[in-house]
């Protein structure tokens, strides 16, 4: 097999057979002999101080083996975010494993380990906690006011972080504008809805070494954060990579209470401890942050943007966690970078409230920014009678321009305009009708949402890890074992890595097996996040395979009496270039390398081959990618709005995306189709709802938290992949996964406007909001 036969082909997933027959590899299925089961007692109050905790009755319950309260756990403050070093300046370390102060309803206050889950649950009921309730604040802008309850002593006005950027002269830019547009755009709190719950099994051995099996997206982050929170050396923690996990989407990018509490319980008791979250616990563990964006844009009559000013208020809940990073990504990539404009100013506020803490979610601050920026562009175009595609082209970055994130890089591959043009043609953009002009009660509309600048990983971000590695070992049967720390969330990292390794080695993808890995045995890998796996880990896998191949050809060259430079590997055989008859199977070369140095020939002992041929043929890499190339995206949607019921139906989606090069078309389409489901949910129905008085989560199961089912999804989702061949990427590839989630809300908002002539600037666009906007409620 050559690269051309592997890259760009819809190779079947190596893990699919296992998954359709039961899927034993999920962390939720993992167990150890003698394992105990842990459960967590959570606060019913959104803000309170614990006066006392009495665990004496719970301790008496047969089967209870250990109980933790804030008195029994280290009070070391940490940030749970995986992808930054624990001591990073940009993080806010404001959490402890268990505290005597609770700041949101559902915060853990005690943990129990028992022989069964039922006993652990019973024990929770026997723990008596005496709380002193404290005043609460749930609205971030109220939290910033003088006199609001203060959640953290070292955060005046409840502001955990306050980044700001300024380019050019905004006042001058607004003075040059013919028109100034101002708007406020509000997004809601949504959950990633990974289907496999967060779960862990922690085993502390007699020497005090911790081994973790967990459903998280990053094995190295889990090792580092656990060691930090427990205040122990990192080398005392091993995290085992699961064969696969049941989804993540950014929702498993931080250490949870469960891993830390299970670890302490396991150490205290001397037995493995398992903790699995209920769906209610998952719903209050992680969410995309609501952000309110105040956006002001100055434009000339011809549509040139002269100035942009924005202020973003992010509700981070009880702790800063990801809110400390999301706000920056939102400000840069969501609001500031997408369009060229010399005069820009942005300020962001990460604000503490008594709401649940936020987390990672595909897009990481960008969907909130995109909804504001793209919605306002639609308003500008409507008001000034400009074509939304032409407006975007006028203000867009061009191929070859300096990258707005780092002017030392250029947009070497950049298919933004092509994405818009191809998508427009497919959706029938030129036939789009004026807003609200449809007849009848059910009105159709077409809308566009785009994202011109985004990432392929985290190269260039201060404090964020971006290096990765892999190991490739060749076997005597001609196959290869590939080991890397990259966790497959479901999005196909296993398939992509085996394809890239196979293409580089010159063997069939089914002859590459992704093998065991843990934090002891493979090079560091940054998390599977930030659209980085194909570009960054793909580069590392390619480099490790190239290293193994170099060693293979050196030995083969000796055997075949040829220079390694004159050799190639085709279909699993080493050949002298241009002479297929010279073929020697890879396995035969490996056999020479792996055989004993001295062999018994029956007539005496003889060397089997020279010493320099001996040794396992293994390739290794650990590297940082050279750049951070930007993908570019345009989504076109057609909706139908029922003006009697307010219901919005998405009928059709055309999604065009410049991803450099498609590694696996079927997997790439799957990413898009799933991303669009998450985007439609965000746009139209998903919302974590909380009791206004108590802060308790009211949408804590899938009966109350609505996400699109197969019935609500559009019947047509078309993916158009623009291949611009990114020079720095593996086989030309850059990123795909997050923009299909980012753009739907803006596109759907624009399509709803096109259908009914009314704009909704607060997500989700529910039937109630549509009817209210139409004056029918």
């Amino acid at each position: 097999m050559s690269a051309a036969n592997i890259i760009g082909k819809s190779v079947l997933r190596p893990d699919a057979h296992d998954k359709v027959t039961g899927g034993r590899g999920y962390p939720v299925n993992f167990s150890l002999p003698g394992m105990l089961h842990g459960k967590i007692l959570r606060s019913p109050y959104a803000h309170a101080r614990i006066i006392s905790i009495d665990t004496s009755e719970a301790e008496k319950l047969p089967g209870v083996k250990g109980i933790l309260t804030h008195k029994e756990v280290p009070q070391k403050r940490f940030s749970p975010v995986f992808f930054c070093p624990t001591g990073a300046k940009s993080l806010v370390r404001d959490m402890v494993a268990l505290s005597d102060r609770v700041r949101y309803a559902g915060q853990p206050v005690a943990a129990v380990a028992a022989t069964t889950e039922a006993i652990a649950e019973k024990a929770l009921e026997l723990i008596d906690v005496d709380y002193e309730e404290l005043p609460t604040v749930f609205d971030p802008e109220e939290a910033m006011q003088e006199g609001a309850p203060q959640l953290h002593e070292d955060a005046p006005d409840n502001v955990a972080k306050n980044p700001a950027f300024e380019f050019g002269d905004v006042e001058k830019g607004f003075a040059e504008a013919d028109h100034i547009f101002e708007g406020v755009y509000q997004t809601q709190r949504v959950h990633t809805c990974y289907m496999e719950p967060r779960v862990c099994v922690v085993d502390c051995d007699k020497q005090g070494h911790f081994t973790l099996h967990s459903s998280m997206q990053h094995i190295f982050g889990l090792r580092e954060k656990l060691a930090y929170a427990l205040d122990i050396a990192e080398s005392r923690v091993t995290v085992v990579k699961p064969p696969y996990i049941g989804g993540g989407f950014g929702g498993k990018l931080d250490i949870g209470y469960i891993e830390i509490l299970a670890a302490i319980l396991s150490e205290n008791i001397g037995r493995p401890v398992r903790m699995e979250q209920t769906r209610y616990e998952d719903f209050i563990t992680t969410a995309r942050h609501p952000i309110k964006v105040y956006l002001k844009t100055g434009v000339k009559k011809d549509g040139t943007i002269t100035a942009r000013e924005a202020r973003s208020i992010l509700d981070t809940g009880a702790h800063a966690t990801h809110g400390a990073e999301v706000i920056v990504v939102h400000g840069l990539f969501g609001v500031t970078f997408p369009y060229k404009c010399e005069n820009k100013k942005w300020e962001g506020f990460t604000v503490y409230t008594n709401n649940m803490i936020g987390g990672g979610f595909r897009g990481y601050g960008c969907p909130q920014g995109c909804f504001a920026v793209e919605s306002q562009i639609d308003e500008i175009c409507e008001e000034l009678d400009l074509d939304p595609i032409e407006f975007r082209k006028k203000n867009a970055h061009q191929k070859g321009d300096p990258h707005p994130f780092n002017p030392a890089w250029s947009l070497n591959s950049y298919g933004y305009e092509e994405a818009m043009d191809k998508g427009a043609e497919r959706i029938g953009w030129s036939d789009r009708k004026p807003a609200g002009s449809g007849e009848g009660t059910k009105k159709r509309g077409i809308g566009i949402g785009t994202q011109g600048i985004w990432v392929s990983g985290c190269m260039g971000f201060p404090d964020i890890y971006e290096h990765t590695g892999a190991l490739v070992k060749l076997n005597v049967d001609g196959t290869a074992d590939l080991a890397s720390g990259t966790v497959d969330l479901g999005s196909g990292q296993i398939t992509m890595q085996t394809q890239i390794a196979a293409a580089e080695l010159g063997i069939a993808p089914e002859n590459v097996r992704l093998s065991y890995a843990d934090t002891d045995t493979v090079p560091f890998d940054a998390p599977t996040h930030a659209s980085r796996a194909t570009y960054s880990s793909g580069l590392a896998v390619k480099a490790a395979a190239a290293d193994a191949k170099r060693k293979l050809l050196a030995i083969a060259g000796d055997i075949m009496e040829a220079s390694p430079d004159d050799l190639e590997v085709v279909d699993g055989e080493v050949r002298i270039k241009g002479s297929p008859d010279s073929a020697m199977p890879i396995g035969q070369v490996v056999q020479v390398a792996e055989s004993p140095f001295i062999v018994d020939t029956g007539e005496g002992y003889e060397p089997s081959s020279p010493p320099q041929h001996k040794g396992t043929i293994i390739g290794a890499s650990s590297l940082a990618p050279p750049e951070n190339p930007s993908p570019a995206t345009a989504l076109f949607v057609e909706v139908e709005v029922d003006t009697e019921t307010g219901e919005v139906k998405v009928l059709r989606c055309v999604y065009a995306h410049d991803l450099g090069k498609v590694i696996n078309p079927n997997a790439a389409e799957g990413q898009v189709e799933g991303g669009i489901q998450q985007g439609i949910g965000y746009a139209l129905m998903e919302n974590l709802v909380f009791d206004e008085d108590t802060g308790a989560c009211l949408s804590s199961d899938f009966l109350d938290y609505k996400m699109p089912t197969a019935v609500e999804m559009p019947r047509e989702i078309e993916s158009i992949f623009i291949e611009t061949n990114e020079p720095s990427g593996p086989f030309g590839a850059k990123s795909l996964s997050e923009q299909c989630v980012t753009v739907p809300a803006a596109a759907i908002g624009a399509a709803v406007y096109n259908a009914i002539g009314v704009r909704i600037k607060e997500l989700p666009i529910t039937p109630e909001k549509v009817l209210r906007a139409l004056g029918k409620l």
Partner: protein
Amino acid sequence: MKQLVTLNINGEQHELAISPDATLLTVLREDLGLLGTKRGCDTSACGCCTIHIDGKAVYACVVYAMSVQGGEITTIEGLGENGKLDPLQDAFIEAGAVQCGYCTCGMIMSAKQLLNEEPNPDEEQIRHAIAGNLCRCTGYAKIVDAIKMAADNGLKGQSS
């Protein structure tokens, strides 16, 4: 106090001592090690634990194991014959309908009931048949394709 029950699962009789309040999901996973049936929500809303009782797709998380004695219970492990995968399992692999795969087994069980009752379903019938199974990875597009593919393959198999 545990009670003795006899459950017919995938054609085999299992005698078990279980708690009267144990759900079928718990018994399948924890007493029998049939891990293909997943716990996704425990509130009968996600569909990850879909199994068959007498050929009908049911959420195992809301069925007491005590209550289904005498019924024929089929889990994902019971699909396929003579070491071969069920056509639905093959189609899910072939169509790329599997991503994280956590919903897959439940999804296949719902689709199986559909194809048992309607060998040639249209797209709307397929979508409604899996409306009780949530998936967060695929947007359902390739799942719908897979079910259609399995139906087509089944019809071809009959005609040949």
